[in-house]
């Protein structure tokens, strides 16, 4: 008999597991895949290490900062700031036709860029900032209000609104076209007011610390242990049936499998309406270059591009992908400092919106060819906004919505989960709770905070 069973060994599940094991609970994390990390994972192919998910860790604050989600999660996990070896970004940009806003981890740069490009919006942007700093991400008032409406009330130039929304939607919006106000505030702060950073060794370093901590506290982690069903009696989940036939019992279950995915596991055939799963998925390519990106004139950490004045954030309807917008990221362009130096090879990662159904319906014979075709087309689209790197590419790897599904088992390969969040993490059962993207927080820091707060609220406070 466990105190808590956690479904999924991603960032949120591992963080929740650490909290509970820290306070002497018997905890077991069940992971369906053969590796940890979920959406934020890593793999090795043809002698190279690749990350899935992580472009940048958001919410970066310097050592010694007491406020903000990064400081909060380090305290909660009893980790040191140094453990994540975070190197800050060199600088990023939002690129639209004929106009570019640069930003870095100091909001003054963005403020100045806006004052130059949109002089009449300078003062209104200052007012907007004051409204955003005070949003309490633990209280989450007016969370589902329209962010577009809020922006229209504070800014006049529609192009500036589109440009501000572009990176925020790309890095954490599960809704099509519009964004929840609460999510907008959280993302705005995490990207523009706090900022980007990355460990030299990538996401594996963060995962390594989480797993080591969890195990050192006596936690049990089982890989290749998919959950077949959750057995329900009355209003409680009483046991978990694994795909291998084993039955495990626990007082609480915390699931990062997603809300619709979790309800489907419950054997009481819940009468509650199934929540709508998310539909935004991506393809992402990694191009390995024969030089550092800065040698071909690319020194940006991340470029969010869009090729018209209007930013479209929706599942591509008629094609496998939508090439109008994308994210270019180079893990080389962080300030790693003299002790680490440059990464061994140059990398350009490129993310493009994709249609999950179209990708999964492709016959096997066409899948590879389509991957190559969309790789070429998406790179051709991206080099409109950065130096052309195509003659420097020595290797590529591409993941599609099919890959995302394999790592996360989330419906539709939905990267940011369901459009309607379950902020309190509750379900129709008294001892079954959600954590991870469908609870509400996204990104690496967000997922960890989600796991921590759901574990605290539901499995520690009442124990």
């Amino acid at each position, binding site marked *: 008999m466990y105190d808590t069973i956690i479904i999924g060994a991603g960032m949120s599940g591992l963080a929740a597991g650490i909290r509970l094991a820290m*306070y*002497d609970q018997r905890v077991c994390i069940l992971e369906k895949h053969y590796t940890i990390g979920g959406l934020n994972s890593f793999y090795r192919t043809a002698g190279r290490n690749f990350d899935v998910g992580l472009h940048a860790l958001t919410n970066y604050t310097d*050592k*010694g900062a*007491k*406020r903000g989600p990064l400081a*909060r999660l380090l*305290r*909660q996990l*009893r980790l*040191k*700031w140094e453990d994540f070896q975070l190197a800050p970004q060199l600088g990023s940009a939002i690129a639209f036709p004929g106009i570019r806003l640069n930003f870095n981890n100091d909001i003054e740069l963005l403020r100045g860029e806006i004052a130059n490009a949109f002089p009449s919006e300078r003062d209104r942007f200052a007012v907007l900032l004051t409204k955003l700093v005070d949003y309490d991400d*633990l209280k989450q008032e007016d969370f589902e209000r329209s962010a577009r409406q809020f922006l229209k009330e504070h800014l006049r130039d529609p192009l500036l609104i589109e440009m501000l929304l572009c990176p925020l939607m790309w890095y954490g919006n599960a809704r099509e076209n519009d964004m929840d106000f609460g999510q907008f505030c959280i993302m705005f702060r995490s990207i523009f007011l706090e900022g980007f950073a990355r460990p030299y060794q990538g996401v594996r370093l963060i995962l390594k610390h989480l797993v080591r901590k969890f195990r050192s506290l006596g936690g049990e982690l089982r890989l290749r242990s998919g959950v077949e069903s959750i057995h329900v009696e009355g209003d409680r989940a009483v046991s978990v049936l694994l795909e291998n036939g084993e039955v495990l019992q626990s007082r609480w279950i915390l699931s990062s499998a997603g809300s619709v995915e979790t309800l489907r596991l419950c054997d009481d055939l819940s009468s509650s309406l199934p929540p709508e799963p998310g539909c935004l998925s991506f393809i992402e390519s990694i191009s390995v270059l024969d030089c550092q990106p800065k040698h071909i004139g690319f020194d940006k950490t991340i470029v969010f591009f869009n090729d018209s004045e209007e930013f479209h954030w929706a599942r591509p309807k008629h094609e496998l992908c939508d090439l109008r917008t994308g994210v270019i990221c180079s893990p080389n362009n962080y300030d790693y400092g003299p002790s680490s130096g440059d990464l061994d090879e140059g990398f350009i990662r490129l993310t493009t919106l994709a249609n999950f159904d179209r990708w999964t319906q492709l016959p096997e014979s066409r899948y590879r060819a389509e991957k190559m075709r969309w790789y070429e087309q998406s790179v051709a689209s991206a080099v409109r906004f950065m130096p052309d790197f195509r003659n420097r590419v020595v290797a590529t790897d591409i993941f599609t919505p099919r890959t995302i599904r394999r790592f996360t088992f989330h419906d539709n390969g939905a990267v940011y989960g369901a459009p309607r969040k379950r902020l309190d993490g509750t379900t129709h059962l008294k001892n079954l709770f959600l954590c991870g993207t469908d609870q509400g927080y996204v990104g690496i820091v967000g997922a960890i905070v989600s796991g*921590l*707060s759901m574990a*605290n609220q539901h499995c*520690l*406070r009442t124990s």
Partner: protein
Amino acid sequence: MTPAEIREEIIDILSDIAPDEDLTNLDDDKSFREQLELDSMDFLDIVMELRKRHRVQIPEAEYGNLASMSSTVTYLEPKMKEIVRA
């Protein structure tokens, strides 16, 4: 435990929660929230650590007593006086 020992124990818990924090100049009458910027998650940790280390139970309605060092020590004194320091 004497009030002085309880204070030491709280300092130990705080240094666990916020390892980068210099606690030598802590003002006992000022709130933790103000001095250390502790949030609601951190207060839960003080409660959980007291339960884990000393089996002291603090009902949620009484968390308010943990606002500052002096209020915490006053509140914990009757609950911890029988505890012999390890």
